[in-house]
């Protein structure tokens, strides 16, 4: 019942599109850049509203990472501080932010699969809406979600003793670092969701982010990993994100790890973009 009601609400908002077309003497073409922005905005609002109304999922996706951060700090914090000489939080807060970004994208992937089987995607496909807005809005909504969860995790980190040692600009930039790789990961999850028949494929991405978490410089410092594994740990995207965020908070290199992280994200997006567009079209046109 709930989902039907919220779908109806989504259509009430979408009915606004036709009004816009009537007001203009010559309606803007549905594939113009202006329409793309407008339609993406409407869809993004729809996804965010759905997310906010699902209170259990919101609470879970906000509280679980905070609990994980507190736990990691209790379990490993002291040992790591002894080894590195500075608080383990400079690695664990960014790592938990990345975990929250990646695990949260599963919720979106499963939601997409459900909308496909409910037929909502096909119904949206017949509207005079820019073709790219459906996918772009999912990435945009996830970017908002990632910033929100990162902010919550940051607050928990501040209570535990995490402090920004750099300027205001760096501190603000810190908050937005997880977006890059987080949105790329969402792209990967969406692509999998569009081609998978079963939700267990999405569940399987738990293994991917689990590996990225355990073998990152945020779980234990680089030197603690086995020597033969260190090159992998050092160059994987989550480690680069953590290194960037550590540079922006505690101090250290920022530019090099950030470029590496952006290259990883761009690579994932480049690989996924075309299959994602084809898959979304196919998912919208079936049935």
């Amino acid at each position, binding site marked *: 019942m*709930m989902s039907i009601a919220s779908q109806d609400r989504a259509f009430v908002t979408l009915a606004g599109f036709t009004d816009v077309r009537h007001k203009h003497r010559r309606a803007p073409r549905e594939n113009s850049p202006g329409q793309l922005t407008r339609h993406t905005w409407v869809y993004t609002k729809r996804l965010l509203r759905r997310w906010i109304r699902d209170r259990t999922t919101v609470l879970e996706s906000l509280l679980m990472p905070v609990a994980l951060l507190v736990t990691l700090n209790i379990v490993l914090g002291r040992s790591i501080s002894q080894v590195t000489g500075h608080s383990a939080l400079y690695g664990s807060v960014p790592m938990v932010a990345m975990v929250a970004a990646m695990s949260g994208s*599963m*919720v979106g992937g499963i939601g997409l699969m459900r909308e496909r089987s409910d037929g909502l995607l096909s119904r949206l496909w017949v509207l005079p809406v820019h073709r790219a807005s459906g996918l772009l809005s999912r990435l945009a909504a996830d970017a908002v979600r990632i910033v929100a969860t990162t902010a919550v995790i940051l607050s928990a980190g501040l209570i535990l003793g995490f402090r920004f040692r750099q300027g205001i600009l760096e501190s603000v930039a810190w908050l937005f670092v997880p977006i890059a790789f987080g949105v790329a990961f969402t792209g990967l999850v969406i692509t999998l969701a569009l081609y998978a028949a079963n939700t267990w494929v999405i569940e399987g991405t738990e293994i991917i982010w689990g590996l990225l978490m355990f073998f990152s410089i945020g779980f234990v410092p680089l030197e603690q990993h086995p020597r033969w594994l260190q090159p992998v740990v050092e160059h994987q995207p989550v480690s680069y994100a953590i290194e960037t965020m550590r540079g922006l908070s505690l101090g250290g290199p920022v530019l090099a790890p950030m470029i590496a992280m952006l290259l990883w994200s761009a690579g994932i997006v480049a690989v996924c973009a075309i299959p994602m567009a084809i898959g979304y079209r196919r998912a919208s046109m079936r049935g």
Partner: protein
Amino acid sequence: MIETALRPQTSAVQQWRTLTVRMITPTLRNGEVSTVVFASILFTVGFYLPLKGLMGGFPGGMSSYAQYLMPLIALNGIAFAALSAAFRSATDSVKGINRRFKAMPIAALTPLAARTSASMYRCAVALGAALVCGHVIGFRFYGGVGHAVGFCLLALLMGAVTSLIGDLIGAANKNPEATVPLMLVPQMILGLLSVGLQPVERFPAWIQPFVRNQPVSQFVYALRPLGGDSTPAAGEVTWSVVGPSLAWLAGLTLILIPLHAFVATRRR
């Protein structure tokens, strides 16, 4: 005299078998069971490789960190399998199949029994994978066949109760497909906050009572002597070591079964 159809002769055992096979067959066909194997590998390498250096100096007097870590690897692998089974039952409840079962001459808890047995099959696969992984990093059974069997049985019983918990979350939840995957995090939290990674003395003093008494630690305390060690540090298998975990299992089952009966028979 109105003629009515005869109530069909049903056998609970046959229903249970049919429903169990229904849950198991698809996992063999689409390779879904591979996620369970990969999860066991993930927990083994994920805990062992990064933490060996950090914790290796304090394995509680045991011969190696692998020997120390094995109970937690097995428990985490099995819990993941049990919770992923809960995810299946959540899908069942969303698709309305549980509602259709209610309209059929099936006992209220038969579908649950079938789901639990299907989940036991996943748990057995996870345990097998965890033991192979453990063997690779250097874990060995030192206590003979009896203790090894006891190790596996206790771990599988823990899996059965975990699947009852997961199944309840899945069946009672409004949006289970989205919430159940997030269960990996609480499971990891309980694992991290247990004596499976490091001895209780290594935790801050204020949290030690929780760490010592929470169920995962109690299971680790029971599994460690069953696994044994080349040194006496693993401890002896006594009722005072194994008892608490059996009490947890019995207590949780006593609470969970009536709750399941309530969820299975309520109308909505």
